[in-house]
């Protein structure tokens, strides 16, 4: 009998965690869920990529770990999507946000500022490529 109770408590535990997690997901995202992101491959295919041809920018975006915090065209961390950012921000604003400097530094948490500080070490050419590439990201989220 005690064995049965033990197994029951295991199921209760599982149900509790899954239930609360789902509740959390709903409370966190009250509107209809964004379309399930496509199963992404290591490199976003051309159709998944926002319009733009700047290969270096796309490559840097992945290699520099931007996708661990940002999504673009459905790839990456959906918490901070960058879709349409090119339509909203001017190049020098983009540069400030990427590196977490200037006015951006005031909004970002200390941890993110620390993470972004390393992008200050990117070469001017790389930074310019990223800015140019994001500048072309004008399409809304897929």
């Amino acid at each position, binding site marked *: *009998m005690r064995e049965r109770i033990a197994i029951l408590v295991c199921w209760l535990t599982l149900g*509790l965690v899954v239930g609360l997690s789902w509740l959390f*997901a709903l409370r966190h995202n009250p509107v209809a869920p964004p379309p399930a*992101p496509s*199963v992404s491959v290591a490199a976003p295919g051309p159709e998944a990529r926002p319009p733009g041809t700047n290969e270096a920018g796309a490559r840097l975006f*992945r290699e520099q*770990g931007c996708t*661990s915090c940002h999504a673009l065209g459905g790839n990456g961390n*959906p918490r901070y999507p960058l879709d349409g950012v090119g339509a909203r921000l001017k190049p020098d604003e983009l540069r400030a946000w990427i590196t977490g400097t200037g006015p951006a530094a005031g909004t970002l948490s200390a941890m993110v500022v620390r993470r972004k500080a390393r992008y200050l070490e990117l070469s001017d050419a790389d930074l310019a490529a990223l800015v140019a590439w994001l500048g072309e990201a004008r399409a809304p989220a897929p």
Partner: protein
Amino acid sequence: MHRGDQPVKTDAPGPIASSPPPPEARPSPARWWRAVAWIGLYLALVAAPLLMLLAGPLPKGGGRAWDFAMALGFGGLAVMGLQFVLTARFRRATAPFGIDIIYYFHRYAALVGIGLVVAHYAILRVGFADAVGPANPLAAPWHMTAGRVSLGLFVVLIVSSLGRKLLRIEYDGWRIGHAVMAVVAMVLAIVHIMGVGHYTAAAWRGTVWTAYSALWLMVAGYIRGWRPWVLRRHPYRVTSVRPERGRSWTVTLEPEGHPVLRFRPGQFAWVTLGTSPFRAREHPFSFSGSAADSRRLQFTIKELGDFTRTIKEVTPGTIAYVDGPHGVFSTDHFPSSPGFVFVAGGVGIAPVMSMLRTLADRGDRRPLLLIHGCRSWDDCLFREEVQELQSRLTLSVFQVLQEPPPGWSGGVGVLSEEVIGPRLAPLTASQVFFLCGPKPMADAVQQTLRRRGVPLGRIQTELFDMA
């Protein structure tokens, strides 16, 4: 942490207590409520991190699948963290259940925990591969590597535990590896969460989370540090090692400078012989002596493996430590039962002897039946003393031998339905049954009883194997 509310006094983990257990066990409804309360506390601790996430303003959402996966990760880690608490042997918390079932639960809870953590990883890996980033530790951020290594360690931990016997992993080595891997995996998981930082960034959450994590690690410290330290301050000495039938030895211990620990007949303890409790070389053995004996403890140990083989070489004077009492396998929990039936296989007679001796010392005259399965008449552990006890108790005895001598009139074979069914039949309406022996035997007898309509609540089992 555990001022005992049990009659068996349980303040420190230390094996000390002075008041003898009263003859009446506590009423069972109270035990039920206590059990329910502890289960409630367990579930509350599992839910705590998730409730903390739900409380207060939330950071920006990342889509339902994303946030669901995140929450599963927190839940999985809470389950894993509580694994330390489950095996910390907090006597007050385990008493309503019996610590054997806590270990049983520990094994299944591990599967729940790993299931949640794997789901956390799988959802992100499949749905958000770019966010998870590269697996190569040289390219991946350190906190992502920490998460991956932690997950891998948890898997190794579980496979090596559930498959220990199949993989032929030696017990003592496994035990050390298990403890080390568990702590490392847990620390890495916490590092992973702190590194990702999204949910713990808000100041108060960070503080609460740190405190919650510290709690788990403190429990680990309690198990490895505080408890052995308290044990060391309550040493025992071996006073005799007496050979018994069936390749078994009875070891007698006397306390050194403190009162002997008190137990309920049928309970067991983790015993360390001849080495420091810090080395975690303890083995579980049932008390076999009378609980009414306030001067010494007895354990009857059968030669079965690496450690038990060395019992016969133990000399009087050897230092010993006793972590107990544990377990709920005891006649004391059934003060109003009209009588008891004991079914023991081999050395499974040890806790039964404790109950018989105690009942005799207390002058209990309720009708008792002992069914004892042995290999041969020569191997029939305690058969002389059982015979003597018949003059002090209302005790009938039925011995079942696999290799009976010529002219044997008792039972023959194993403790199967055909052999013992007829003996049990007249008793199934009211008696409480105590089964102790190898798992196949206990399972077979339990099925026999279930088929005869005995409710599970009246079948008490003790398995001599926790893994």
